[in-house]
């Protein structure tokens, strides 16, 4: 801008120099904002500790990928693209907004560095951005008001619909765009075209055209009015942000910076309290709001209310009482209530279970991780659910259905209460030329095959153990199993909140693993994989059998015969604890594709990190939440829709659930479920 026909800084308002007002508004606005932020920080200071300051370079990379590059947004394409537009629009317009504020009391202000050529480029970019944002906002508003995507719906018992709030904020954003462009358009119209023209077809350009020929005094008035609207709206919006889901505008960058780096593991009961000292704690788990860590409270602030987590949540899909989105929203609202901007924070200890959360709600989660995979701002759910369960276990409110297997795990080291001495009885009949060495008889080996409970005791799953043993033998792996001294890995004991029992099992197994002198562990059970890799410390590196097979297939060590019946179509169901939690999507596929001529399809939209949980493993097999349908049935129907007649999976719990589901879905005889090791074992060249 070379010369200015008028400026808000030199205007008069109500007989006063307007710049006073325009200096006051930002001052008051920023002061209010600072006050609100300080109040919002109060509960975080009361929250439990949570060390999130390590591995800073990785954290910065996450911020660049997930926050700046909006990596997860396009998973929901339409909303994702629109959000990216609005997000980048906000980033681009940040400079312009700052300039706007100062223009109110410094006429002709230009941000340092944005004079000259760079400024000219910026002007073009900012006009395009503002226009794009407005278009996006209109589309978003129509989408919310008219098309009403299902994931935004609010169940009746959880309160009023959030659409009015959403539309209000979209309106504010639109107002900012319009008022800024009008402000600019008025100036350009006064200066006259064509020397100073906005980029064609932008909002500014539109206003410039519309206002051509309007007298300068009127333009001055319009310019001033637009400025007032923009200034007030800007600071109103800024101060509004911390009161609802738009708090994420401020908190998201921090939330992503502090998000989970290690997948698969569960937070310790209390950061900074070593396992050996847990007995000394007065209370375990999260029972009241203040038991949450500060990062979890930040999560509640950051929830965008987008509903993507609940949309992908399998428990929510089958109408269990759990909706992850509302875990966040209800807690956020409780936090706002207990820590108001004006007035004293609450000091009473109000239990969460029986308050904002119900017991069934928290027991419904299968810890599949779909929610965390989806969340665009890095909110964590599994740790919160586990902490809430820890609290319930500490209080003794555990469903009867889970008490029996927990008691059996404590006494017998497996949830069915089967005799310890029968843990290795699956080795009988494993096949000619295959010996399964037992550590309990003094054998040692390079590799330890950690079988875990279901594969050891369930007669259907014992076939998987035998197949795994045969595959390992064929692949030339020198392996042994622990035998009767092996106890349940405790993976789901931990995730159901019985941390002390988990510690006991972990300590016992760690000793047994050390005693085996193995340097490497192999498992067929992804829950065991996750426990040994991510929950245990001081044990050798763990691999899943699919990785061994993939390697063997790749190197030629494992030669697989073509199928005798090549008419069937196979699909792979990614187990949650192999795929999402441990990133092993490719190895099982390579293993399957190692069978010449096999026809394999993907369950598009529901594979890899979007795999739909089979229903859950470990203790979830014993628990019976209220639901309208079994998750396994949903999965089987997805397989059928993809054109498959064989579902291959790589987890004994998935196999159990899917085989049951095939019966329930009435597809017996038309759909088969098979474990990867069974499939490969069947095709091993003799």
């Amino acid at each position: 801008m070379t010369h200015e026909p008028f400026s808000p800084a030199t205007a008069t308002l109500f007989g006063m120099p307007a710049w006073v007002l325009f200096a006051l508004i930002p001052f008051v606005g920023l002061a209010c904002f600072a006050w609100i932020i300080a109040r919002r920080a109060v509960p975080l200071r009361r929250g439990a500790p949570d060390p999130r300051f390590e591995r800073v370079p990785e954290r910065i990379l996450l911020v660049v990928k997930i926050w700046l590059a909006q990596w997860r947004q396009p998973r929901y394409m339409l909303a994702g693209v629109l959000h990216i537009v609005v997000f980048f629009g906000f980033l681009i317009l940040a400079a312009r907004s700052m300039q706007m504020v100062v223009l109110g009391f410094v006429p002709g202000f230009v941000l340092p560095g944005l004079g000259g050529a760079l400024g000219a480029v910026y002007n073009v970019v900012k006009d395009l951005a503002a226009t794009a944002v407005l278009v996006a906002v209109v589309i978003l508003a129509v989408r919310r008001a008219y098309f009403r995507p299902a994931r935004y719906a609010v169940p009746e018992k959880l309160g009023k619909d959030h659409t009015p709030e959403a539309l209000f904020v979209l309106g504010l954003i639109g107002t900012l765009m319009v008022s800024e462009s009008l402000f600019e358009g008025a100036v350009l119209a006064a200066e006259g075209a064509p020397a100073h023209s906005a980029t064609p077809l932008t909002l500014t350009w539109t206003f410039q055209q519309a206002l051509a020929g309007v007298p300068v005094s009127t333009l001055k008035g319009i310019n001033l009015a637009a400025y007032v609207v923009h200034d007030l709206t800007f600071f109103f919006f800024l101060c509004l942000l911390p009161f609802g889901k738009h708090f994420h505008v401020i908190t998201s960058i921090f939330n992503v910076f502090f998000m989970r780096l290690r997948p698969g593991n569960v937070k310790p009961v209390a950061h900074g309290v070593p396992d050996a000292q847990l007995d000394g704690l007065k209370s375990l788990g999260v029972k009241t709001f203040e038991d949450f860590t500060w990062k979890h409270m930040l999560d509640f602030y950051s929830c965008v209310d987008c509903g993507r987590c609940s949309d992908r949540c399998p428990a929510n899909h089958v109408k269990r009482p759990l909706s992850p989105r509302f875990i966040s929203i209800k807690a956020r609202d409780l936090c706002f209530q207990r820590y108001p901007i004006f007035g004293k924070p609450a000091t009473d200890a109000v239990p969460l279970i029986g308050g904002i959360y119900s017991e069934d709600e928290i027991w419904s989660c299968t810890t599949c991780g779909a929610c965390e995979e989806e969340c665009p701002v890095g909110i964590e759910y599994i740790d919160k659910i586990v902490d809430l369960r820890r609290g319930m276990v500490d209080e003794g409110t555990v469903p009867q259905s889970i008490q029996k297997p927990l008691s059996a795990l404590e006494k017998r080291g497996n949830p069915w209460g089967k005799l310890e001495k029968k843990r290795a009885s699956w080795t009988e009949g494993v096949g000619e030329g295959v010996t399964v060495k037992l550590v309990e008889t003094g054998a040692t080996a390079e590799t330890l095959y950690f079988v875990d409970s279901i594969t050891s005791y369930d007669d259907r799953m014992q076939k998987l153990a035998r197949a795994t043993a045969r595959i390992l033998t064929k692949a030339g792996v020198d392996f042994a199993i622990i035998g009767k001294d092996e106890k349940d890995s405790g993976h789901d004991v931990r995730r159901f909140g019985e941390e002390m029992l988990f510690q006991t099992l972990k300590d016992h197994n760690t000793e047994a693993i050390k005693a085996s002198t193995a340097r490497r562990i192999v498992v067929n059970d992804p829950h065991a994989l996750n426990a040994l890799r991510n929950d245990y410390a001081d044990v050798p590196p763990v691999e899943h059998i699919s990785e061994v097979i993939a390697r063997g297939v790749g190197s030629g060590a494992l030669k697989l015969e073509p199928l005798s019946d090549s008419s069937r179509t196979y699909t792979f169901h990614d187990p949650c604890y192999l795929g999402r939690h441990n990133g092993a999507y490719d190895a099982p596929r390579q293993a399957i594709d190692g069978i010449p001529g096999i026809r394999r399809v993907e369950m598009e939209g529901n594979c890899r990190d979007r795999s739909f949980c089979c229903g859950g493993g470990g203790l979830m097999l014993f628990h019976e939440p209220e639901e309208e349908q079994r998750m396994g049935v949903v999965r089987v129907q997805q397989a059928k829709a993809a054109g498959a007649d064989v579902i291959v999976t790589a987890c004994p719990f998935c196999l159990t659930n899917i085989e049951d589901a095939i019966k329930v879905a009435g597809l017996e005889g038309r759909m088969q479920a098979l474990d990867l090791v069974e499939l490969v074992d069947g095709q091993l060249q003799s």
Partner: protein
Amino acid sequence: MEILVCVKRVPDSAENEISVGPGGADIVRDDLVYSVNEWDNYAVEEAIQIVEREGGSVTVVSACDSEAEEIVRREMAMGANQGLLLTDAAFTGSDGLGIATILKAAALKGKYDLVLTGAQADDGAAQVGGMLAALLDWPYASVVNKIETNVGASLRIGREIEGGNHEISEIDLPCVLSIQTGINEPRYVGIRGIRKVASVEIPVMDSEALGMAKGAVGATGAKVRRVDYFVPQLGAGAEMIQGSTEDVAGKLLDLLKAKGGIK
């Protein structure tokens, strides 16, 4: 209310395969895990819930078993206020009446309004509660599955009888009730809870402390004596029945009748 709950340490039949040892003298105990008798656990939970409502305290007592301390402690971890162990060499070999006699002596040492037992235990006799009530000369009700306490000097109770029917009665206090499973949902007791009560003192009373004459109970006083264990002959795997549908149905009918399958 002051409540005394009688508990027994039993092999956990859910988690054990019970087999007979050589000569039938005893069952094989090497691999057994023990826990509090399931029915007794429901009784303790019920007592704790009553005391949470009405005030008072819950005392858990176990007789004749020197290893019962672990289960009494577990019930205290669950929420019982006191524990009590009744052991004496002279108690060994007591039959059901003997045990009831020992428990009676303990019950009279306190001032209890209510005594609870489990409806039955591992030997399926379901006798101690009824005997104890008769020895104390207190009213009795068995297989109680509901207790209401707000009825003055009585309780309103539900008993579970055949056909799933509920028999509602009023019973005067003090009384003895044997508790049926399913009356409530016992709270969970984890390792942590048990560690918390690990060093709480549990008093032990012998026959002298109970004011009982030696020889009143124990093997000498027992009228019922188990001589040995055995397992009736069974083949491995199923005995397969062949024949025409008529024949098979006929054979099944005979088997069902013989085994009490036709009611």
